[in-house]
């Protein structure tokens, strides 16, 4: 079996997540061939064949051109599987390739078993085992689901692809996220508010607990999107990554994108009315309670 592994480059630098595709290829025992629209100056440590297109010409976001380049490689290599990350790059490009090849796509793979892929459903409350029926399969991998046992090493044998600057979608610029504000990444204690707080006034309970514990407060995305907390307090894949000694998740369900930002925490306490909430999977202690009762009670005890 042969696998095309689609690596990613952003602002001229190879994204380390690219190695997760290599880990997946090892797991399914496939011969890996890499594909990258990137730069000679930032190549993956990989001892195999790498098809490289110059991102300065093609652009880092140019789906039509990236698709054309990938199709060229697929035609040359005739792989059985094409592997992307389930990332802003991967979920954008993978279905285009699947469509062009008439191949089935399986998204956000977390595991594989006997030729089928395991994917999450319903905010990770369920797992689905999915199989593609054709000769070629396209998959995207959940970030962090596969990792290499050893440090990657070696240098690739580069095959240059000729890229063009074609395409109707015009990339104009990158825009950085908001800067400044609180740096949660250094906090030893983070108490985060989720949508379960119900209304903005209840954020005060979370802040009060954070204060009583001598920590900072953070938030899940819906709390930030609603404008109840500033973006610099958002924990998750599109916010901050924290690794405190104690993380308290208040009214947070535990979506994978939230977990991505807090799973390195040493000790996790979750307060949730839903005993089945996926946050329970990573919590050392799950307190099944209404946070409106529990938080003030805990804060009072700490301050006593």
């Amino acid at each position, binding site marked *: 079996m042969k696998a095309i592994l689609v690596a990613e480059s*952003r602002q001229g630098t190879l994204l380390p997540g690219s190695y997760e595709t290599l880990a997946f290829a090892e797991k399914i025992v496939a011969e890996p061939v890499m594909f990258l629209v990137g730069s000679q100056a930032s190549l993956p440590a990989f001892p195999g064949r790498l098809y490289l297109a110059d991102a300065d010409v093609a652009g880092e*976001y140019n789906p039509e051109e990236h698709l054309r380049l990938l199709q060229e490689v697929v035609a040359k290599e005739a792989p059985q599987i094409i592997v992307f990350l389930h990332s*802003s790059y991967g*979920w*954008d490009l993978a*279905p*285009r390739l*699947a*469509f062009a090849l008439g*191949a*089935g*796509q*399986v998204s956000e793979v977390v595991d594989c078993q006997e030729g089928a892929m395991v*994917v*999450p*459903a319903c*905010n*990770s*409350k369920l*797992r*689905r*085992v*999915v*199989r*593609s*029926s054709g000769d070629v399969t396209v998959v995207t991998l959940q970030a962090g689901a596969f990792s290499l046992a050893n440090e990657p090493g070696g240098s690739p044998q580069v095959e240059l692809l000729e890229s063009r600057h074609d395409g109707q*979608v*015009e990339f104009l*610029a*990158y*825009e*950085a996220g*908001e800067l400044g504000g609180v740096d949660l990444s250094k906090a*030893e204690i983070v108490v985060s508010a989720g949508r379960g707080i119900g209304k903005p006034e209840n954020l005060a309970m979370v802040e009060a607990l954070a204060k009583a*514990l*001598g*920590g900072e407060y953070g938030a899940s995305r819906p709390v930030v*999107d*609603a404008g109840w907390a500033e*973006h610099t307090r958002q924990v998750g*894949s*599109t916010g901050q990554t924290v690794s405190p*000694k*104690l993380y308290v998740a208040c009214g947070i*369900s535990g979506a994978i994108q939230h977990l991505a930002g807090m799973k390195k925490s040493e*000790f996790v306490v979750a307060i949730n009315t*839903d005993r*089945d909430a996926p946050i329970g*999977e990573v*919590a*050392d*202690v*799950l*307190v099944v*309670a209404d946070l409106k*009762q529990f938080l003030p*009670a*805990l804060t009072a*005890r*700490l301050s006593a």
Partner: protein
Amino acid sequence: MKILVCIKQVPDMESRFKLNAEGTWYNDQDLAWRMNEYDEYAVEQAVQLREQLGDGEIVVVSVGPDRVKEAMKKALAMGADRGVHIKDDASHEKDPFQIAAAIAAYAADEKFDVTFTGMQSQDRGSAQVGVLLAAHLGMQAVTTIIEFSHEGGMTTVHRELEGGLKAVVRVPLPALFSCQLGLNTPRYPTLPNIMKAKKKELLTLQMADLLKASALTTTDETRYPEKRGGGLVLEGDVADQVSQLMTILKEKTAVLK
């Protein structure tokens, strides 16, 4: 301008899910249903675009059994003009390729200028249907947008990337955009608009009449995840929970001074 919005009805994610008899998906009895969260942003963006332009038509389409009309009525109450229900009692057995093919079969002759979808559904989460629909229709697609503007015939969007970075992208129409959380603030339908929505056209088409393609992927089974165990669950009286948690924090962490 003709605008299409694709929405899905999904169960409340706080539900306790049971499996169906075949063990291939959740049992759809006794669940609370709502519009897929991402799609609320899609509907809102369509309504805002029409408001900005001062004219235009918004069609909302949804695939599934009769109950999905509830979600469609919400979209109509938010401001969509008419609905097209692609009726399929076994929509959970269709794969993303088929769902996109069926919507494309309907949309092909309608010549929509702009299509909005959610970036993914909360239950399946494949994040494929939007991009596949655009591919079926031979138009551009840009995924995961968190800003949308249409000025002087130009459509400019911000795509959300990882870690807070955004890519600013300009796209010619017709095009499809998949909407990410936070794109806008979805409005709550007002009572008068809910009443008005009841009189809006809601056409039903049959899946079998639209879908010719077979599935490219199939579900072997759906199951619960393996519990990683470990975690302690505290239930019961709040005062007891507080005492127990205090003891645990003292024993297991160094944060209580």
